[in-house]
């Protein structure tokens, strides 16, 4: 079964009279349990793609089937529900709420999902354990390192057991060491069966995935598996 089916997807940004075609006809299928990297030059449409995949934005035309339901033209609140239950999103800039503790940040998606307090506590604890941060529960984001913040963000993304984990340059703000740690987590999550789509500029990071899709000027110019055992292979 495909988690993602995208057919002829187009996204046009309108700014007054000016039209920017950020995506011009994307066709992309992503199967269950795949670990895909999206690469490409700056401005090639990667983030635009991710935002649509993450149901944060509507495509201008084309269809997007998420687990075989068309979500391309759903209303706001429907999309919010999908973001809440089916998608975990990890951002380059972490996007944690600064006034909440790490634990409370991880709890938040479950609050919107209506999970009971006891279940919430348990699952947030489990998610924090998965990312190795059980000793940082009560810390606020500004009391954590970049790598730790990103791990909190991953825990938050995972906590509602989504079908899809999206990450837009998750290691972009991190040093190599922390980036490696994040990739280790992603790999083990993928081994546990989580479908991951990740944007990155770095070959080394992409090498951790199993498939590399390359964008250029809003179209896909290559789509290759990562050769086993060869770090840095691909486009």
């Amino acid at each position: 079964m495909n988690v993602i089916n995208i057919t002829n997807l187009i996204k046009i940004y309108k700014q007054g009279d000016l039209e920017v075609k950020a995506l011009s006809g994307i066709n992309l299928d992503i199967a269950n349990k795949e670990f895909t990297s999206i690469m490409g030059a700056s401005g090639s449409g990667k983030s635009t793609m991710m935002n649509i995949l993450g149901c944060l934005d509507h495509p201008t035309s084309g269809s997007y089937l998420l687990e075989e339901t068309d979500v391309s033209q759903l209303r706001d609140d429907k999309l919010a529900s999908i973001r809440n239950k089916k998608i975990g999103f990890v951002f380059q800039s972490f996007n944690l709420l600064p006034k909440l503790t790490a634990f409370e940040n991880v709890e938040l998606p479950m609050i919107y999902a209506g999970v009971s307090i006891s279940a919430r506590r348990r699952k947030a604890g489990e998610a924090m354990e998965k990312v190795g941060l059980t000793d940082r529960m009560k810390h606020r984001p500004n009391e954590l390192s970049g790598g730790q913040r990103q791990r909190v963000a991953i825990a938050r993304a995972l906590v509602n057991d989504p079908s899809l984990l999206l990450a837009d340059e998750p290691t972009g703000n991190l040093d190599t060491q922390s980036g490696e740690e994040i990739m280790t987590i992603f790999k083990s999550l993928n081994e546990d069966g989580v479908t991951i789509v990740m944007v990155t500029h770095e070959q080394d990071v992409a090498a951790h995935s199993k498939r590399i899709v390359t964008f250029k000027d809003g179209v896909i110019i290559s789509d290759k598996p990562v050769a086993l055992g060869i770090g840095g292979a691909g486009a």
Partner: protein
Amino acid sequence: MNILENLKSSIKNVFANKMRALLTMLGIIIGIGSVIMIMSIGAGSQAAMNEQFESMGMGRINVSVAGNNRDISQNDLMTIKDYNALAENEDIKYIAATYSASAEIKLLDKTKTKRASLTGIYGDYQQITSPTLLYGRYIIDNDNDLAAKVAVINDTTAVNVFGAADESVIGRKISLPTYRGVQKYTVVGVLSNANAAIERQYSDQFPESVIMPIVTLQRLYGTSQVDQITVLANDSNNADSVATALTNRLDILHRTTEKYYAQNTMAMMEQINSVTSMITGFISAVAGISLVVGGIGVMNIMLVTVTERTREIGIRKSIGARRRDIRRQFMIEAVILTGVGGAIGLTLGWGGGNAIGNLIGVAPVVTVQSVLLAVLISCGIGIVFGVYPAGKAAKLDPIEALRYE
């Protein structure tokens, strides 16, 4: 997200910046505070006045001739005959006739006199006024039959005239120099003066008070006139209709039309109450304008808050908050601001009411209704002025909100 957790996080957000929260609430605090203060003083003075009326006897009706002296002919004047006629009315409990005059009374220092108000009474005057008899007895029917030269005075007058207010006063005589020479009346009773406290302070302004049989007083002035008939209705709620029956009866007896005027305590009280309510209401409404100003202040700060927290809203939306989740969060924050402001205003208004009440000698009354009203109004303001900012927050586009710097 359940309400309790919403409340907790909202309280945290609102009071993260205490100074700003306080300034935002100021309009509401002042508005609710002044409304509560005014209403408590208003209710307090109303209660005091009602108490006064109740001490006069509810359902008390004073009947007299209407109009000024020029309009009144000899035929219109009331006499004991009218008293007897009105006494037949079955809806009345007590009836008394009075004739009032004023004269000079000799004081302890015999060279000095002071103004005295003389009240000639007939019938159930004692029952209607229910005074406290300290010594001796009250005027009785027999005194009228005999036109006895007896008088009942109060303790203040007793001290002023005899130098003491005790048993020894009974049997002594008061002297009233009149145009018919000095008249002497034997004191048969001493009453407690209900207004003693005030009269002692302003003793010059208050005349001495002398009560005597109406017949005795009428003889002194060579008249048979009764200038007021006072009635206590069986049922105070009927006072209005009893009053009408009495004046109609008098019009029939005297072949006049609407010549008689009945003043009833119940109606007077209602009238005064409605006036105080109106005044209180009006001043409260003026004070209430600051509530609108306060509401606008809250809206303003909520709009600023929404802008400041655009990124937070974006993050919340990106992890699945729906419009209604965001709207509810900001609505609750607005209602907390105004609700807490209202509570502070309530407390300050209460305290202010007590302070002013102390100053002007009124015990302020804060009713449950006014507290509920204050709470409802302040929360209502939060809802009314929170809707727009909360709606604005709810409608933010997640992508744009996330990009907001």
